[in-house]
């Protein structure tokens, strides 16, 4: 059946896959360990020193006789044991790295997903520095997913705009189109990826940089003294946003509380001017410095059982600063204050799965080099005064 004239189609790229062993392996150091990065599938393997040669041989050709010889030499074992080690390693690699990941896009098939071009879209204009975005939300849900974080940047009217975003929502799926070009589609259950892509597109437009020009976007809060940035990592609910707001109330500037981009070229942390999300249990403490939070609209996510409000960040100037330290934070009642250096490997293991790290080989290399030169700390606290004092000291002299 032909679609109605008012309907429109979005052309989506559907990947078909084929097996391939063309991925290259890059090796980096991580303290005493080695990191092997697999291009094409963007996976990092942390290994003991000296394992890289063995992994590479297995990756290229598991039947290679040199593998058993190398196992014998490396582990000082006999033929039988060497074969067992080899089999274990092959099984591990097949199960954890290759399996269905031993694939890469072979061809792209175009598939037409139909989205009705509804007339009753919600239209919003946002001004971020000199860039004006015109956004159309096709449903209330599509709007609620994205608008609250940027509501403080809304302008009433705009005759002209630089970029046109459209968020479609039909038949249990979202899709995002920017200037008539599709950027992706997601099931409702994956709406956090729509939010991420929406933010990524805004980031690219306001900085005039393509996706491959970013090292990564980290699930972290970034706070700056104007010269450097300290990045705060932690699970959802660990208190990153609250900590950001408290530091903001104490004279520091928040670059982002959740979606923290690092530019690839100079490894600089950039501002992303979305509002800070404040969880319900932090309203009271935040209201002391930001009383407006009391009257802000409250939101709820029933799936995650989270209730929160947004605290606008009105400074949206294009600030880009180097990172001075990575801090893994956990707010825990009645713990006082603990601040210690953190094992680098543990920090890497926590950071990578929680972040989008560019799949470009040059960026992966820069990411590991960048990470390697940053000190890592663990902060567990309930004492806000001590926390603020320590973070300010860290900015001033790097010591604590």
């Amino acid at each position, binding site marked *: 059946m032909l679609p109605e004239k008012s309907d429109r189609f979005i052309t989506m790229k559907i990947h078909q896959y084929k097996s391939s062993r063309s991925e290259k392996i890059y090796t980096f150091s991580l303290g005493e360990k080695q990191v092997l990065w697999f291009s094409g599938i963007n996976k990092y393997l942390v290994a003991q020193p000296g394992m890289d040669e063995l992994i590479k041989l297995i990756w290229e050709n598991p039947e290679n006789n040199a593998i058993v010889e190398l196992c014998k030499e490396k582990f000082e074992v006999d033929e039988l044991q060497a074969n067992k080690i080899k089999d274990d390693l092959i099984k591990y690699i097949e199960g954890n790295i290759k399996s269905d990941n031993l694939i890469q896009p072979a061809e792209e098939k175009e598939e037409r997903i139909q989205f009705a071009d509804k007339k009753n879209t919600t239209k919003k204009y946002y001004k971020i520095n000199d860039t004006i975005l015109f956004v159309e939300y096709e449903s209330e849900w599509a709007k*609620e997913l994205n608008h609250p974080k940027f509501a403080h940047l809304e302008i009433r009217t705009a005759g002209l705009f630089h970029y046109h975003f459209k968020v479609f929502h039909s038949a249990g799926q979202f899709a995002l189109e920017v200037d008539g070009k599709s950027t992706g589609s997601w099931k409702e259950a994956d709406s956090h990826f729509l939010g991420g892509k929406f933010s990524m597109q805004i980031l690219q437009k306001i900085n005039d940089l393509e996706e491959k020009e970013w090292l990564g976007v980290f699930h972290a809060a970034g706070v700056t003294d104007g010269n450097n940035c300290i990045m705060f990592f932690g699970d959802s609910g660990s208190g990153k946003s609250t900590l950001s707001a408290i530091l903001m109330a104490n004279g520091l500037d928040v670059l982002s509380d959740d979606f923290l981009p690092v530019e690839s070229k100079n490894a600089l942390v950039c501002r992303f001017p979305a509002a800070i999300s404040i969880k319900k249990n932090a309203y009271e403490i935040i209201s002391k410095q930001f009383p407006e939070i009391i009257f802000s609209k409250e939101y709820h996510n029933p799936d995650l059982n989270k209730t929160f409000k947004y605290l606008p960040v009105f400074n949206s100037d294009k600030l880009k600063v180097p990172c001075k330290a990575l801090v893994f934070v956990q707010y825990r009642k009645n713990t006082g204050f603990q601040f210690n250096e953190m094992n680098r490997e543990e920090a890497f293991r926590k950071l990578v799965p929680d972040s*989008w790290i560019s799949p470009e080989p040059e960026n992966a290399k820069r990411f590991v080099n960048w990470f390697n030169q940053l000190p890592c700390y663990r902060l567990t606290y309930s004492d806000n005064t001590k926390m603020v004092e320590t973070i300010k000291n860290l900015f001033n002299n790097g010591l604590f």
Partner: protein
Amino acid sequence: MSKKNNNEGKKIPTEEISRREAIRKAGKYAAFTATSMLIVLSPKESQAQSPTPRPGW
């Protein structure tokens, strides 16, 4: 040389174990736990955003 001194001579203080010896010992241990010394990490395939509101809430 006294008996006491002989015993002391047999005992190799930790700091005197050569680097090669340490690697060899670690290697033998690793032979049986090679895969336990590997950790695979996958970054997110796409940028994501933390908890977002749901309509009507």
